[in-house]
């Protein structure tokens, strides 16, 4: 048996206390919707440099814009979709036009180009994830308030409202998906996702 000294015990319990208290003091955790058993797993993704450092936190936390306002295809198709530049310009023709990032965006817009946004949450080509079905099951069919949809998105995308440029915070590997499918009654047939 491993002998634990008093000193170790104290430092361990202090650490545990810190783990419990720290998130609560720094920022409030995103609540987990009660009708979902959340998928488990953490991941530290690589930095994905974007052409413009889009601040998710400004838009989601401060401005309270719904995820699906910009990622509008999430409820309609397999992919959530990266918003077209016209969507950004819809607001930013008028708002915050003096900021350097917005000026960069306006440059793109005037040239008729779109910024080459990089994909952050990428899964291999043999995995066919469908946003539409997950949103349908966990939001619309469950009568979950659409204004809180970030709680559902956050289960796989992490706390995007605390990020500037999106980062990959969840492993999105097969174990992560499969454990959640088992807990929430999702399909277990390989050909549902792989083909």
């Amino acid at each position, binding site marked *: 048996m491993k002998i634990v000294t008093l000193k170790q015990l104290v430092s361990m319990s202090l650490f545990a206390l810190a783990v419990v208290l720290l998130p609560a003091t720094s920022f409030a955790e995103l609540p987990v919707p009660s009708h979902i058993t959340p998928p488990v797993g953490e991941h530290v993704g690589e930095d994905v440099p974007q052409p413009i450092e889009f601040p998710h936190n400004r838009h989601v936390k401060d401005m309270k814009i719904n995820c699906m306002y910009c990622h509008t295809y999430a409820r309609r198709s397999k992919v959530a979709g990266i918003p077209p530049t016209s969507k950004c310009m819809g607001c930013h023709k008028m708002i915050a036009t003096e900021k350097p990032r917005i000026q960069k965006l306006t440059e793109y817009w005037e040239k008729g180009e779109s910024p080459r946004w990089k994909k952050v949450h990428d899964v291999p080509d043999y995995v066919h994830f469908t946003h539409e079905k997950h949103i349908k099951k966990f939001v619309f069919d469950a009568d979950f308030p659409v204004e809180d949809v970030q709680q559902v998105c956050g289960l796989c995308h992490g706390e995007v409202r605390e990020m500037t440029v999106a980062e990959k915070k969840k492993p999105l590997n097969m174990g992560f998906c499969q454990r959640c499918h088992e807990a929430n009654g999702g399909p277990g047939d390989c*050909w549902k996702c792989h*083909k």
Partner: protein
Amino acid sequence: MSLKNILENFSYYRRDAEAGGHHEYEHRFAMAIDLDICTGCNACSTACYAENNLPVVGKERFEAGQAMHWLRVERYWDEIEGDYPEQGAKMIPMMCQQCGAATCEPVCPVAATYHTPDGLNAQVYNRCIGSRYCSNNCPFRVRYFNFWSYYEDSWPEPLRMQLNPDLSVRDKGVMEKCTFCIQRIRNAKDKSQREERPLVDGDIITACAQACPTDAIVFGDTMDPESRVSKAWAKHQIHRGPVTAKKQKADEEIRGYRVFDELNVDPSVMYLERVRDTEV
């Protein structure tokens, strides 16, 4: 599986093949192919190439038996009706028969091929380790192995723009075969769910059936008694499950048969025999 479970659910585990065996089927997709109206034009095969990202391998690899045609139109001659110069060839489109009791499934060491609740014989590419046992155990020879990474030479720029994004491009070392266009099945099911209605006959059409100019290929669900394919199977007295006795086919109109039915693999494709009035 505990003994208690077996005793309690004895009748379930003893279900015969006609009732679905040990599977809980949601659908049992099947085909009926009328060889009498098939002209052997190969449009089905071409459509399958386009739909399923099949590589064109080139002459040398074709000669080496490495072609990747999930659907091949075979020529054959009947002994009774005479051999080559006297008799013209007959054609038979041959693809994976999605057997109910598939011989490929039990030999896979990693369970990369298994039976789905749709009654299909699935092939999971990312699970496959390329042992090729399944292909050697298939009586129809309809499984194809990627001996090379074909994507580099099969789809040079800009041809790769034509690849179907709904399914993967397979790499070297992976077995593949006809899937009954699973991506189309999934899309049709998603659409019916979105519209909150059950899947009806005609929602799903496979690429080969869609391309066939003479409508020789009929695709559908045999669990739906109203589907075209169910009616064709019933009309030609073909039933699910093993063959119990030699069929009595007195009627000339009854032309249905399943290839290698005597092996009891329960194929999901029924062919209608070709009728010939005169010698060609």
